[in-house]
C-alpha cells in the first residue's frame, strides 16, 4: 500500500481535497471522498474541457434536446425525434479489448435508452497501432469481436464506423461507439428527479465488483491487499440482459411508467443518483441494503461506485411500482425499490443502519473545480516540398499497394462480423460513405456516419477540425441526406500540456466553424483526455458522428457504379495535396484549408441532385485520393471505367492527393445537362465513363489499367492479409 494520503491515492489534488469540506461543511468520510474523486474525475466532470465545449454550436430549429442529458435529440418530422451520442471506451478496451469494447457498446445504448429512445443504429470509430504490432493485432481483433458479440446479441444493427491504424495509437488505442435511437417528441424522458416521495427503482443486473477502481483502494485498506488483488476491475458485458433491458424499458416507457430515467455508467450509482438529484434540484435517499448484490458482503463504497453493467434507475409513482415489477418479472429482470426522491437536495446513502454518505448532489455534479487549459500555440508547418517526396517508379504498383493498406482497403473483415441488417431497415449497407437506415414504419430515412481526420488535426488543428466536420457532412450528402445533427468524442492527449491544450481549443474552433457553416448543431458528445504514454501521444482525434435525413429512402444513392455507359464526373473545387495524406503516411506538411463556401455548395448540390434522381452513384474523395475513390466505385458496382484525371503538379499527387471538397459521381448521359445546370458555381468536370471490367485511369499522359478482379483481391486482402 502506498504512503500517499488517501485523497492522492484516489486521484484528487490537494486543493480539490481542501475544497470538499468547504462544500459539505465538514470533513468527508472515506466513502464520500471516494465519491468525490470519481465524480470529479475528468471523465465525469469535464473539468479540463468544459470551457472549451462551450464553443460548440448547440442550437437550431430541429434541436429538441441539446447537450446535458444522456443523449441529444433532434426533430425528424412527423412527431419523431432522433437521439444520438458518441462515447469513448478507450481505456477499458486497452486493458481488456473484448469486454472493454463490448461494454462500450452497452453503455452508449443505455444512454440512448435513458432518453426513452429505441436504439436503431450503432457505429464505431476505432484507432489502433499498426497491424505489424502483435499487440495491436490482438487489441483490434478482440475489440471488433467484442463490438460484434454485444451489438449482434442486442439486435441493434451496427451499420458504420471507421478504422485507422497508426503508430501513434500503439500505446493508447481508441474505441468510440455511437448509438442512434428514435423516440416520439412527447415520449422523451429526462433524468431529472421530480417529486419528493416517489420511489426509485433499480432495474436490471445485480451489482457486483465490476469496474471498481477507486473503491478497491478504500476497500483494500480495510480488507488487506490480498483481497484487493482478487477484485476484478474489468466490467463484463451481458448483452442478453441488455436486450431484455431494452425490450422491458421500452415497454415501461410506452405505458408511461417513468417519471425520470437514468442509466448507470461511470461511477455507477453515485453518478446516476447525484445527476438525477442535481438535475431536478431534488435529493435522493438510497438504502444500499436494498440493492441486489451478486456477492454478499460488498462494502458500501463498492456498492456506491460499482460499474456493473446493464442497470437503469427509474423514478416512478408509488402506485406504479407493482406494474413496473410485473413487467420486469416477465422479462426476467430484477426491479427493486432502493430509495426515494426527497426535497433536501442531498444524495444520502444508508448502509446497515448508518448514513454512509450525505452530500449536496450538486457538489458532486456541478462544483468540481474547472481548470482553464493553457494553450500554447504552435507554428503551423509549411506545405511539404514535393521534391522531398520520392515519386514512385511504378505508378500502377503504387496504386495496388495503396489498395492493400489496412487504412484504405476494405473494412469488410470488420463489418461482416457485425449484424448490420437486423430490423430490416438498412437501406444502404456498410462499405460506402454513410449507411442509410429507414425510420421504422416510414418512407423517410436517416443516414449516419462517423469521421475524423487525425493527421490533418495534428499539423493544422483548426483546419483539421473543419475538414473532419465537412467530411462527415459530405459523406451523408453522398447518399442524398441533409445533415441535421452531430455528436462528437474529443480524444486527445494530456491537456495540461500547452501544445495539446492548443490543439484541443483549435480543433473545437475548426469543428464549430464548419458546423456553423453547415447549420448542424452538436447535441451531445464525450471527451477522452490523457491518451498518451511516455513514448507517444495520440493525434488529436475529434471523432464526429453525424446524422442526416432523406425524405424518400428509395432515393438513397450508393457509391458503386451502376450502368455501363454512365458518365463519371468529379464535383467540387478541391485541390489534391499529399500533405498529411495516407499516401505520405505521416502527419507532415500542411493540407489546404477547407473552404466553407465550397464545401457547403457541394453538399447542397449533392442533396439536390439525389433528390432530383440525377445521380447513379456518389463517392466522397478522401483517404487515398481519387485513385481510391474510383477503384471503390468500380469494385462495389462490379463495373470498370475509363477516366482522365485533371493534371496538377505530379501524377502521384493527382492520383493519391487528398483535401478539399471533391466527390466522384456517375450519372446517365441523359441526366448530364440537368446535373451541369444544377451545379451552378460548383465545378462539375466530366472525366470519363463507366465501361468494361477494368479501371483505366489516365493521369499526366500515362494510362494505368487495373482489372476489377485484381483490384478487388488487393482491396479485400488489406486487413485479413495484415492479420494473417
Amino acid at each position, binding site marked *: 500500500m502506498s504512503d500517499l494520503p488517501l485523497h492522492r491515492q484516489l486521484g484528487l489534488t490537494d486543493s480539490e481535497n481542501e475544497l470538499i469540506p468547504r462544500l459539505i461543511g465538514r470533513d468527508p468520510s472515506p466513502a464520500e471522498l471516494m465519491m468525490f474523486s470519481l465524480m470529479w474525475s475528468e471523465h465525469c466532470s469535464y473539468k479540463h474541457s468544459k470551457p472549451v465545449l462551450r464553443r460548440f454550436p448547440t442550437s437550431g430549429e430541429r434541436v429538441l434536446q441539446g447537450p446535458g442529458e444522456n443523449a441529444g435529440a433532434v426533430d425528424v418530422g412527423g412527431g419523431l425525434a432522433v437521439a444520438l451520442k458518441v462515447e469513448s471506451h478507450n481505456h477499458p478496451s486497452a486493458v481488456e479489448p473484448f469486454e472493454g469494447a463490448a461494454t462500450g457498446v452497452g453503455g452508449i445504448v443505455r444512454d440512448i435508452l435513458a432518453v426513452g429512445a429505441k436504439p436503431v443504429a450503432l457505429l464505431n470509430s476505432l484507432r489502433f497501432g499498426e497491424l505489424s504490432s502483435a499487440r495491436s493485432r490482438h487489441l483490434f481483433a478482440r475489440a471488433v*469481436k467484442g463490438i*460484434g*458479440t454485444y451489438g*449482434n*446479441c*442486442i*439486435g441493434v444493427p451496427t451499420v458504420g464506423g471507421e478504422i485507422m491504424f497508426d503508430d501513434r495509437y500503439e500505446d493508447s488505442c481508441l474505441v468510440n461507439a455511437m448509438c442512434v435511437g428514435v423516440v416520439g417528441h412527447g415520449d422523451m424522458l429526462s433524468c431529472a428527479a421530480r417529486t419528493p416521495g416517489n420511489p426509485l427503482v433499480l432495474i436490471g443486473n445485480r451489482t457486483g465488483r465490476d469496474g471498481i477502481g477507486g473503491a478497491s483502494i478504500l476497500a483494500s485498506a480495510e480488507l488487506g491487499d490480498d483481497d484487493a488483488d482478487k477484485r476484478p476491475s474489468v466490467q463484463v458485458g*451481458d*448483452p*442478453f*440482459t441488455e*436486450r*431484455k433491458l431494452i*425490450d422491458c424499458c421500452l415497454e415501461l416507457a410506452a405505458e408511461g411508467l417513468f417519471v425520470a430515467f437514468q442509466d448507470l455508467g461511470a461511477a455507477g450509482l453515485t453518478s446516476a443518483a447525484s445527476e438525477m438529484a442535481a438535475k431536478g434540484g431534488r435529493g435522493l435517499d438510497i438504502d444500499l441494503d436494498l440493492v441486489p448484490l451478486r456477492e454478499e458482503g460488498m462494502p458500501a463504497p463498492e456498492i456506491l461506485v460499482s460499474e456493473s453493467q446493464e442497470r437503469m434507475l427509474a423514478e416512478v409513482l408509488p402506485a406504479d411500482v407493482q406494474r413496473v415489477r410485473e413487467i420486469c418479472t*416477465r*422479462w*426476467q429482470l430484477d426491479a427493486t425499490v432502493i430509495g426515494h426522491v426527497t426535497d433536501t437536495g442531498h444524495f444520502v446513502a444508508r448502509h446497515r443502519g448508518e448514513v454512509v454518505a450525505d452530500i449536496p448532489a450538486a457538489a458532486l455534479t456541478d462544483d468540481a473545480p474547472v481548470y482553464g487549459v493553457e494553450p500554447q500555440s504552435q507554428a503551423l508547418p509549411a506545405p511539404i516540398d514535393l521534391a522531398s517526396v520520392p515519386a514512385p517508379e511504378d505508378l500502377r504498383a503504387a496504386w495496388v499497394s495503396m489498395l492493400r493498406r489496412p487504412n484504405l482497403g476494405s473494412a469488410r473483415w470488420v*463489418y*461482416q*462480423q*457485425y*449484424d*448490420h*441488417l*437486423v*430490423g*430490416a431497415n*438498412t*437501406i444502404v449497407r456498410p462499405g460506402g460513405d454513410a449507411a442509410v437506415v*429507414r425510420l421504422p414504419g416510414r418512407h423517410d430515412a436517416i443516414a449516419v456516419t462517423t469521421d475524423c481526420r487525425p493527421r490533418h488535426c495534428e499539423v493544422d488543428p483548426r483546419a483539421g477540425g473543419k475538414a473532419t466536420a465537412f467530411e462527415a457532412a459530405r459523406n451523408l450528402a453522398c447518399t442524398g441526406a441533409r445533415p441535421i445533427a452531430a455528436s462528437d468524442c474529443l480524444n486527445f492527449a494530456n491537456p495540461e500540456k500547452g501544445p495539446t491544450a492548443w490543439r484541443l481549443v483549435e480543433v473545437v474552433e475548426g469543428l464549430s466553424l464548419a458546423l456553423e457553416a453547415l447549420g448542424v448543431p452538436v447535441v451531445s458528445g464525450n471527451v477522452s483526455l490523457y491518451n498518451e504514454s511516455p513514448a507517444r501521444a495520440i493525434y488529436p482525434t475529434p471523432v464526429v458522428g453525424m446524422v442526416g435525413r432523406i425524405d424518400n*429512402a*428509395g432515393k438513397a444513392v450508393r457509391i458503386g457504379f451502376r450502368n455501363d455507359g454512365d458518365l463519371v464526373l468529379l464535383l467540387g473545387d478541391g485541390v489534391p495535396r499529399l500533405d498529411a495524406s495516407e499516401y505520405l503516411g505521416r502527419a507532415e506538411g500542411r493540407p489546404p484549408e477547407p473552404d466553407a463556401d465550397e464545401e457547403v455548395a457541394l453538399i447542397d448540390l449533392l442533396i439536390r441532385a439525389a433528390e432530383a434522381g440525377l445521380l447513379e452513384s456518389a463517392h466522397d474523395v478522401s483517404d487515398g485520393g481519387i485513385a481510391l475513390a474510383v477503384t471503390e466505385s468500380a469494385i462495389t458496382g462490379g463495373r470498370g471505367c475509363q477516366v482522365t484525371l485533371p493534371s496538377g503538379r505530379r501524377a502521384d499527387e493527382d492520383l493519391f492527393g487528398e483535401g478539399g471538397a471533391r466527390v466522384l459521381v456517375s450519372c446517365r448521359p441523359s441526366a448530364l445537362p440537368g446535373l451541369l445546370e444544377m451545379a451552378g458555381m460548383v465545378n462539375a468536370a466530366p472525366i470519363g465513363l463507366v465501361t468494361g471490367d477494368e479501371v483505366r485511369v489516365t493521369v499526366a499522359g500515362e494510362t494505368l489499367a487495373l482489372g476489377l478482379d485484381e483490384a478487388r483481391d488487393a482491396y479485400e486482402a488489406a486487413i485479413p492479409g495484415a492479420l494473417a
Partner: protein
Amino acid sequence: MSVAVVRFPGSLDHDSAARAVVAAGGTATFAWQDDAELPPGTDAVLIPGGFSYGDHLRPGAIASRAPIMDAVRRHAGAGGRVLGICNGFQVLCEAGLLPGALRPNATLSFVCRQVQLDVADGSTILTRGMGATMSVPIKNHDGAWYGDPAAARVVFRYRGENPLGSTDAVAGVANARGNVVGLMPHPEEAVDPLLGSTDGLPLFRALASRA
C-alpha cells in the same frame, strides 16, 4: 391467414418477420414463450431470428424448452405449418422438430453477408412456389448445420460456396412431412425491393396461405 410469431427473451427479428408476413398478405400475431397455447385462430407458426437466451449453452437450447413449444409441437403434429428462421431454426432442431443441430460457423466468427441459395426441394407446402434460387442475407454465429443429409429433407443449399461450413452446404431442412421448415438465412430481410431482394416473399406467402 394468421401467423403466430413466437417471442422469447432475446428474440430480435419478430417485428421484421411479422412485417414480412403482412407483406405476403397474411396477418401476424405474437405469442410469448410462457403461453400454453398459440393465439386463437393461429394458422401457421413462425419462430424468428435473434439470440434467445443470449445463445447461452447452445443456441436455441433454452428457448426450445419453453412452454409455448409444446403448443408448437401439437400444431406441427397436426400438420400445421411452422417456419423457423436462424435462431428459430436452431430452436426447432433443439426441440427435435427438425433433424440435425447447428454448430459454430467454420470461421468461428459471426458472418453477415448476402448469399445465394439453391432451392433443393420445392415440393414442400412451404417451399413450393419458390424460384430455383434466391438471394438472401445470412447473419449468425452458429449456423453450420450438422446432421445426416441422407436422412433429412434438405430444402435449401448454399450456392457456389459453403460460407458457414455446414454438412453438404445445407442451409435449410424440412421434416419428413414438409410442414416444418427451418433455414439459417433471413428471408424476412428479402421482402422489399429497397432491401435489395424480394426473393424471400414466396416463403411467407406459402406460410400465410390456405392452399
